[in-house]
């Protein structure tokens, strides 16, 4: 456990100056900032629609998730998993890490958990900044109704579900970037995966729920179609979310065996 703790903080220390880390912060700030600006800019048109307080929040948050969830989040995950492992490939430091008196499972788990932490930071910031921008918009335009409804339940459920649905992609990309040191394979496979994921999800293929690259999009589309997130019918563990979690657990175990057998030639 101590090895895991030490390795995890070392991962943070090593990558705190890299784009992968800062992208987890910059991406939500930029996207939420732009969405809030767009919302404010369209305030006259939105006010005419006479939304309920809940719909104000739904409209604001879905504007963000629509931009981010379909394309930006999967691509960020692909880039970030690549970066976390590439630090070692690029600097030829696997050999150093494996000569330290640390358990290989801890080294591997720390990297995986750190990758998940970056996704959590990124989505957590999206959630927090959406919440903050609602109140900022209310401050700038007092006729909005953001202050009449608490969106915490809606936002936290939505982003938790999105996080769980992206676990499958995280795990696949993590393994790919663990095995291959070059840029093209993880990026190429990830890009093809995301495009295929969009195609099969849009086409409504009946097995799309089991294809990891489709799962975030299906999660977002289901929520959008049914507005379920605002109702008592909300289900966190839908088929695509369960499939994503199972994929992540399975590939985490496979990844460990890859690391355990990894030899440094």
């Amino acid at each position, binding site marked *: 456990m101590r090895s895991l703790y030490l390795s995890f903080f070392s991962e943070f220390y090593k990558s705190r100056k890299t784009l992968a880390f800062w992208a987890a912060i910059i991406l939500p700030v930029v996207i939420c900032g732009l969405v809030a600006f767009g919302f404010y800019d369209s305030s006259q048109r939105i006010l005419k629609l006479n939304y309920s307080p809940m719909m104000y929040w739904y409209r604001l948050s879905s504007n963000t998730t629509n931009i981010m969830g379909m394309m930006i989040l999967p691509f960020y995950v692909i880039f970030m998993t690549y970066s976390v492992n590439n630090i070692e490939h*690029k600097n030829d*430091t696997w050999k150093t890490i494996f000569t*330290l008196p*640390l358990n290989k499972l801890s080294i591997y788990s720390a990297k995986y958990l750190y990758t998940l932490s970056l996704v959590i930071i990124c989505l957590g910031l999206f959630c927090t900044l959406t919440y903050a921008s609602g109140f900022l918009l209310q401050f700038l335009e007092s006729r909005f109704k953001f202050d009449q409804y608490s969106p915490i339940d809606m936002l936290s459920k939505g982003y938790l579900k999105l996080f769980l649905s992206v676990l499958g992609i995280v795990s696949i990309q993590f393994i790919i970037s663990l095995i291959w040191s070059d840029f093209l394979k993880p990026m190429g496979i990830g890009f093809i995966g995301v495009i295929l994921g969009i195609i099969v999800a849009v086409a409504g293929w009946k097995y799309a729920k089991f294809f990891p690259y489709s799962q975030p999009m299906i999660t977002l589309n289901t929520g959008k179609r049914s507005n379920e997130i605002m109702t008592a019918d909300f289900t966190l563990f839908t088929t695509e979310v369960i499939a994503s979690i199972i994929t992540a657990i399975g590939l985490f175990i496979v990844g460990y065996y890859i690391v355990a057998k990894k030899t*440094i030639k």
Partner: protein
Amino acid sequence: MEFAIETVGLTYNFGTQTVVKDLSLQVPKGSIYGFLGPNGAGKTTTIKILLNLLKSPTDQVFIFGKEINANRIASLKRMGALVEQPAIYSHLTGKENLVNRCMLLSINKGKADEMLALVGLTEAASKKAGKYSLGMKQRLGIALALLADPELLLLDEPTNGLDPNGIIEIRNLMIELTTKHHKTILVSSHLLAEIERTATHVGIINKGQLLFQGPIGELQNLGKPVVRIETNNNNQAVALLEPFKLDTIRKEEQAIFVSYNDREQIAHMNSLLVNAGISVYSIGKEKQDLEHLFLDITNPN
């Protein structure tokens, strides 16, 4: 004798290619063991096996008497290593590289400054390691290896890229670490001259096989005795001595070197040269140059 490293008939293959064959290293505790061999002889592969980066067959590698595969973490706790090019994070500064290692090994971060001073990198501590020269990277790699104060150091060609001053500093550091701090050091090199001044023991490897192992003094005894002859006409002297089919006749600018079996042969050579009208300025026994001996061992043909 207690060994810091012991391998027993170690054999390792990359696919169908045997890179280490029946290797039985014995590195005594407290020694500086020079692990010598030409490029591609299997030195780095052996070091990687000793560090468990390459998995060895069971019961073939022992570190301080413990089998490496069964005691990986316990063995690595007692070792520090520099393998091939130093592996450092180029986007971090020299000091950050050391602080990161301190974190991983639960060492006080103040040790980072101590190590930087030891390898002469204090002034470059805040510079990104990617901008270091090869010599500076090598020093940082050595500092990283020494950080945990290990009992056993494995240094793979540590003077690569260092200037003559740097080479001398590393040499002195190795001597100090063994004499004052009782460390054991295995240092690999393809140049005998580089480590003959520091090593107490030598192992010579070629094509994955150990050709010689023992105290450095024993290596000297392996060579045939040689007589050095200085004359006014070395070419003619070589021509006169060649019919005797002596094992080695080597001609250098100032003198010729001839191997001999007994003292009588020296007297005979001298009279032969003098009788042929050649002026002999000096004639005397000389120890065979270790560099040539190393070449003789690794290239018998």
